[in-house]
């Protein structure tokens, strides 16, 4: 009996397999798993095969926080403004123009009303305009922007990035449950006019509204489908592309939205009809797919840097290095005894040989950093020899490393640690091969400059690590020096010196306080300066940001800026793409004859 049922089960399973082999399954339009053959045929749609590297955690604009989600959202949705890929300035998008009231607190945006909501129809394989009950096309209008912003501020939505919108009057109160969502100062005066009041005269507000958190969202669809409104079957959008398929953790397909006015109006627009995204996390696998012509573009794994960028590279000029709006830095927990003296901190910062680190360890064309704010932001003082000149080479007007170390030795001796004698400190970083290499190099540099210093390195799992450097974490658990990176949410110095380190506003893991016996006055100046710069005119704020950086990296020496990130990519010769902070998929062009010829 037992045996027979076993045989029956086996037969059933076999039958199922045979059945499945016979029935030709309907392959969804988005299936891009075919590595070869898919591209064959007579010049079908212009298709780019690109690796997103990870599953986008969301494509709901209000919930997005990471670069992958943002890359997809910016391709399928538009905001009031968008950032220019060259200089990161805010340029018109949904809003054609905007003005600021005399007191600087109220912004009025004039909107175009000819961008339709669209949806991909899987049956017809076409992107179609969404129509209302009366059959008329539905366009993106000011009330939907108002809804999008209010929804992001609503505590029920639980948006991670709602705090970016706290600059809008009433958003913070609503978000922390002390005010009503209806009282948030965003008002659609009519379909084409939106008025927003801010809590202070923020000159960078047009850049803030370029972030997905402030995008218009389709209220009806969100209310109908709830959390799953972003699935390919449900989503409606309004950007240059529309999502036609999303296979979670595997692939996503975007197809051109012919109704987007961008294609006709923007001279930078590219020619790509379809993006077949995959989600391969392992960089070496991604690179192998690139080599096997399964992808048109890839990151370059660390161990392939020399092969791609070395002299006589087999890859010709396929390798590309472009700046990325992030800064890698070490922060001092200034309340820890070992690093409580600003002279010690400056001496340590001076003894970091940034050029060697970049050339010998990182090899990705990164730029040695003398400031926290990355060069791609308004208000940056990167490479300005009046800010931490000891971090810059002589070519850039700095002192060069040898002179910096001499200065450091003097400072170290003045602080009572000649040659580092008697100084023991710990560098903390989260587990990662790359961070470990950097920490070991810096440990070696410090030991070379100050032979008697004792430097330990501690590594922790990411979550545990972040927990241990929180301000309320026990002092004994904290390292003296911690590593982190910061990437811009919007390209303005305020997002750096104010939102990260201002003791009243930022996370301030460096724990600077105005009652600090050594640097109290400087902390007070820094706190005031970064706050005042928010409302100063753009011209005036430049000098303020410069002074703030001088305080942060030199006089208080609370952080060690190490390097500015780069994006390192390899791209097939037939693809012409941008290497800005966001991909700007709508501006890519592909030469199909080159791709098909492979």
């Amino acid at each position: 009996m037992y045996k027979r049922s076993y045989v029956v089960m086996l037969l059933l399973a076999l039958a199922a397999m045979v059945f499945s082999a016979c029935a030709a399954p309907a392959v969804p339009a988005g299936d891009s798993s075919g590595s070869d053959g898919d591209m064959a045929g007579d010049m079908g749609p212009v298709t780019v095969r690109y690796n997103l590297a990870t599953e986008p955690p969301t494509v709901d604009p209000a919930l997005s926080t990471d670069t992958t989600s943002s890359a997809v959202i910016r391709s399928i949705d538009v905001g009031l403004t968008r950032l220019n890929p060259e200089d990161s300035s805010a340029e018109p998008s949904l809003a054609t123009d905007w003005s600021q009231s005399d007191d600087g607190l109220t912004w009025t945006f004039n909107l175009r009303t000819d961008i339709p909501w669209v949806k991909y129809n899987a049956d017809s394989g076409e992107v179609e305009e969404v129509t209302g009950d009366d059959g008329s096309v539905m366009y993106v209008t000011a009330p939907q922007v108002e809804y999008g912003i209010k929804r992001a501020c609503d505590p029920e939505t639980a948006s991670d990035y709602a705090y970016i919108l706290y600059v809008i009057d009433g958003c913070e109160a609503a978000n922390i449950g002390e005010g009503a969502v209806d009282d948030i100062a965003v008002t659609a005066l009519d379909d084409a006019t939106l008025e927003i009041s801010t809590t202070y005269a923020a000159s960078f507000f047009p850049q803030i509204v370029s972030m997905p958190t402030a995008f218009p969202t389709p209220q009806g669809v969100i209310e109908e489908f709830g959390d799953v409104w972003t699935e390919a079957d449900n989503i409606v959008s309004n950007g240059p592309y529309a999502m036609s398929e999303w296979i979670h953790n595997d692939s996503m397909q975007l197809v051109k939205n012919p109704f987007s006015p961008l294609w006709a109006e923007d001279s930078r627009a590219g020619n790509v009809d379809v993006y077949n995204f995959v989600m391969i996390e392992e960089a070496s696998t991604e690179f192998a797919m690139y080599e096997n012509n399964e992808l048109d573009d890839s990151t370059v794994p660390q161990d392939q840097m020399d092969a791609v960028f070395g002299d006589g590279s087999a890859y010709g000029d396929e390798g590309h290095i472009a700046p990325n709006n992030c800064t890698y830095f070490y922060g001092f927990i200034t309340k820890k005894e070992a690093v409580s003296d600003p002279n010690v901190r400056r001496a340590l910062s001076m003894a970091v040989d940034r050029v060697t680190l970049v050339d010998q360890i990182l090899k990705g064309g990164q730029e040695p950093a003398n400031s926290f704010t990355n060069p791609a932001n308004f208000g940056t003082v990167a490479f300005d020899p009046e800010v931490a000149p000891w971090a810059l080479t002589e070519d850039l007007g700095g002192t060069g490393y040898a002179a910096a170390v001499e200065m450091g030795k003097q400072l170290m001796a003045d602080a009572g640690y000649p040659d580092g004698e008697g100084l023991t400190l710990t560098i903390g970083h989260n587990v990662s091969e790359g961070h470990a290499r950097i920490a070991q190099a810096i440990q070696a540099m410090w030991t070379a400059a100050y032979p008697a210093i004792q430097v330990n390195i501690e590594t922790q799992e990411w979550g545990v690590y972040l927990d241990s450097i929180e301000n309320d974490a026990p002092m004994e658990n904290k390292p003296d020096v911690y590593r982190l990176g910061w990437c811009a949410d919007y390209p303005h110095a305020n997002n750096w010196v104010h939102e990260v380190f201002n003791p009243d506003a930022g996370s301030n893991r460096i724990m600077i306080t105005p009652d600090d016996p050594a640097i109290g006055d400087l902390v007070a100046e820094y706190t005031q300066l970064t706050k005042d710069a928010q409302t100063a005119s753009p011209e005036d704020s430049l000098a303020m940001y410069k002074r703030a950086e001088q305080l942060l990296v030199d006089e208080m020496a609370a952080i060690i800026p190490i390097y500015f990130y780069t994006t390192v990519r390899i791209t097939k010769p037939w693809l012409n793409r941008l290497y800005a902070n966001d991909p700007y998929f709508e501006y890519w062009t592909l030469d199909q004859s080159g791709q098909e010829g492979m």
Partner: protein
Amino acid sequence: MTAYIIRRLLYAIPVLFCIILVTFLLARSLPGGPFDRAGDKTLPESIRQNLEAKYGLDDPAYIQFANYLGGIVRGDLGPSYSYRGRSVNQIIKESFPISLQLGILSILLAVIIGIPAGIIAALKQNTWIDYSSSFVAILGVSIPNIVLGPLLIYVVSVQFGWLPAARWGANYKQFYFGWIPPMTKDFWIHAILPVITLGTAFSATFARLTRASLLQTIREDYIRTARAKGLTEYGVIMRHAMKNSMIPVVTVFGPLLIGVVTGSFVVERIFGIPGMGEFFVTSITNRDYPIVLGTTLLYSVGLVLANIGVDLAYAWLDPRIRYD
């Protein structure tokens, strides 16, 4: 027999309860919570509170646990914290079948190669066949997936361009009955390399076990009796020796099968296969408690069932074993 199975299933309930409780407590005892940060950035206290309220993390732990158990009874494993808008049920439904397919194919390959190799090695004990089969088996066990996978990709895909370098040739929107993939060419060409990578290590294990066990069995008295009766060598081995010598193999087979079909993190990652392996690992880093619990629960249920299956197989292999 039926009574035995029912009894075993009932015993499993307290076991599973303990596993859930311990996992629940362990996950929450890790420093850091799911909503402390977005990427490198710390989230303000107010934002974290909103998120915790949305997911019920502001309730006392015992209420959270009770809610979770209630969910399990209803078949609801809760929402994912790190993938907004996706439920753990959905994530398992999408990723588990892929790990299952990869696992079944790998185990099949392992059995097809490993068991005959073990038999031949045992029958030709201390000949060059035995030595070379042992050598290959030790090699198979010793080369880790993390080396073999990239090596295969480099040679077969990059150098010769014979097969795609990565990915799985079918997805959850195409599966029959929720888990059977369409047997297309696309499916097979994507399956070859990961199945070889995962399968060879297991085939080596099976070969070693089969050889050792069979060597012991063919020295038993009843085998001598069978030979004395004048049975052919083939008949002796296949009908009498094989069945009994399979007991150690079956013993490791159950847990191994469950380990493989619930996802191999390394192979899935190397080949970019969207299976469940990744979720076991990343859910812990993300402090995505519902996924940690959901994957652990699935694994535990699988293990309990596999062990029952193994015990039933004993009775079939060895008539002396009875479960009445």
